[in-house]
């Protein structure tokens, strides 16, 4: 009979595991979008256009927000609650700025006469709209997560903050960051 391994007692927190599995699932969704894009690109009437310049700045912003969420996690672990609070709020703010910049990028495309949706739109632009749009929704979900824990820690009289939840938010935040970098490189290379 086999002897039970030591991994049995050092298991990852089940909620964190849940998040990792969910990340795998979200990856599949974007893999489907981007592979559909590749299939479609080789067909006729594909519109070629430059990505909005603002996407470069939004990339910087989301990388910056990944750093701030990492610092927030570091501060809560060393019990510096006030510094943690400022970093986590800055992270959420940067997330919102990122979303706004993406939408600004859409209007930049519109100014150049590239229509994302509606009658007469080209699949190349529609794909960009749908994929970037759904990424923005995932960033917004992260912002809502941060607001949720911030508000619930305000209500809590003991001012106790659950580190596991913050670790999960930080993991998720890094994930949407990496996801955006993947999408950005993808759209730059594959056209």
């Amino acid at each position, binding site marked *: *009979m*086999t002897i*039970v*391994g030591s991994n*049995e*007692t050092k*298991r*990852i927190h*089940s*909620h964190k*595991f*849940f998040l990792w*599995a*969910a990340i*795998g*699932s*979200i990856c*599949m*969704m*974007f*893999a*489907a*979008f981007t592979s*559909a894009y590749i*299939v*479609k690109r080789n*067909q*006729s*009437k*594909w519109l070629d256009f430059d990505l909005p310049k603002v996407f470069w700045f939004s990339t910087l912003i989301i990388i910056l927000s990944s750093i701030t969420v990492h610092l927030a996690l570091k501060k809560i672990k060393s019990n510096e609650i006030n510094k943690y609070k400022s970093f986590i709020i800055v992270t959420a703010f940067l997330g919102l700025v990122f979303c706004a910049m993406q939408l600004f990028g859409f209007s930049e495309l519109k100014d150049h006469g590239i229509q994302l*949706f*509606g*009658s*007469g*739109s*080209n*699949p190349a632009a*529609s*794909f960009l709209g*749908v994929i970037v749009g*759904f990424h923005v929704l995932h960033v917004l979900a992260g912002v809502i997560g941060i607001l949720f824990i911030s508000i619930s820690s305000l209500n809590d009289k003991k001012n106790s903050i659950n580190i596991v939840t913050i670790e999960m938010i930080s993991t998720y935040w890094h994930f949407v960051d990496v996801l955006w970098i993947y999408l950005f490189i993808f759209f730059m290379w594959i056209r």
Partner: protein
Amino acid sequence: MSNEANLHSHDSHDTNHEHHHETFITKYVFSQDHKMIAKQFLITGMVWAVLGGLMSVLFRLQLGYPDSHFSWLEDILGKWWVKDGQITPEAYYALVTTHGTVLVFFVLTAGLSGTFANFLIPLQVGARDMASPFMNMLSYWFFFAASCIMLSSMFVETGPFSGGWTAYPPLSALGSASPGSKTGMDLWIIAMALFVVSSLLGGLNYIVTILNMRTKGMSMTRLPLTIWALFFTAVLGVLSFPVLLSGFILLIFDRNFGTSFYLSDIFVNGVGALPNEGGSAILFQHLFWFLGHPEVYIILLPAMGMVSEILSVNSRKPIFGYMAMIGSLFSIAILAFLVWAHHMFVTGLNPFLGSIFVLLTLLIAVPSAIKVFNWLTTLWRGNIRFTPGMMFAIGFVSLFISGGLTGIWLGNSALDIHLHDTYFVIAHFHIVMGVASMFGMFAGIYHWYPKMYGKHLNNTLGYIHFWITIAGAYLIFWPMHYEGLAGMPRRYYDYSNWESFKQFADLNRFISTVAMIVFATQLLFLFNFFYSIFKGRKVTSLNPWQSNTLEWTTPLRPGHGNWPGEIPEVYRWPYDYGKDGQDFIPQTTPVGEEESHH
């Protein structure tokens, strides 16, 4: 070790806490107990099975008796569905579409793995509940909402969606394509999106619970095969349903926001050329079948797992080739993602690409054959107890062989040119996936009913149910192979319009008659199920099947938390039957010093 102990004491504290505040609503409606959620999935699945079955009876009525008039049906269903005593063409297409959607997704996915993954995973791995009971509850209520919306689509003025369960564009993408493509399709797609969310929440929970919440001593190679099968099912679902969701999102944009992912400048009668350009309907097929093929195994694997367990318990023998069973489940799961284009051989797919998909498709025969061989060798010289559950499990093996063999025909791209979209395909997938998985579900219900309700089902009714259903399944679907070989296409409304298919009029009538008898027999099962909950023979033994697995170490009617004290520790694999002269050795029995190796 100390962590483990802390975790347990914490859990049992939670359990007592929950018991304290249990009301009717928290116990039966918004329950977070995995066993109650399993029953909710089961009952909702059964409601859908009856509705979906009834739909098939209705369209079989049209196929078997195209010239007859059933004016009484008009009074029941109304003029949209039945006109001059005949099912209308619109209603016929709505019926086949909804039958397919409901049976594939709501009955054989939610009803099958929703029920048994919820019921068996915590009980068989030794956990108090799922990793996230709240998400688990949400999973059911998303499914319930999907069910309500799908049901409501039956009552809209233009009828439910009627473009086939695969929802290919342009019928699904273009509101003006058919009556069902309007509101019916909107409701269909909302219902399916909610269903996908439900499956994802459920699947994530199953994976985390299996990998993370096993009791002490329950290593992965001590898990019952049911759990292995449910694990691979969940992995398939979590990786393939998001792809379907992506496909649906693009479809929603095409329907409502004027994009051209799937629609191009095709000409539509009465509308003219569409303003769209550059879209491709084939793209949807790729996205759909990337889910669609794993979906076949999402339906089939739980049945395989339960059948493995039930065959072993009732043969009083260890399962033959435990590791080979896991290996074959694993390879089926991998191959499931690599064969989707065999549904698309006639879409103008590059023949070279086609030949690769033929090879990968035929490779599935290898793990499938390993499984069949192992089931048969488990039965071989066993001390077999023919309980109704065991009968259905053996029936599953029979159907899996019969239906699997025709898969080798269809997996061949050259033969598929002739057989594609004929009744041969209908016969193949109904036997190997539909009826076989239904048999797995019945086997599971008969086998675990004592644990679910503390009562036994009536055996005599069970045997009648089994024999009529298996004979009926073969009588319905076997002749369809011949119809398909003769070229009879699926989804046609009235075959009597074609000279070449008139020869099948009698056969079609025969199939329809058997279908009605089989459907009526399922009502017998329903009676048995609900009657036995209240009036069935009480279970008196904690372990009525003399089984080794952990679920039989709980009290007769386990409460929320499953075990009143500590969760038992596991010392061995679950298949020590007939070892060292002992009939069975439960997983909780420590290994003796003198004990032989299996």
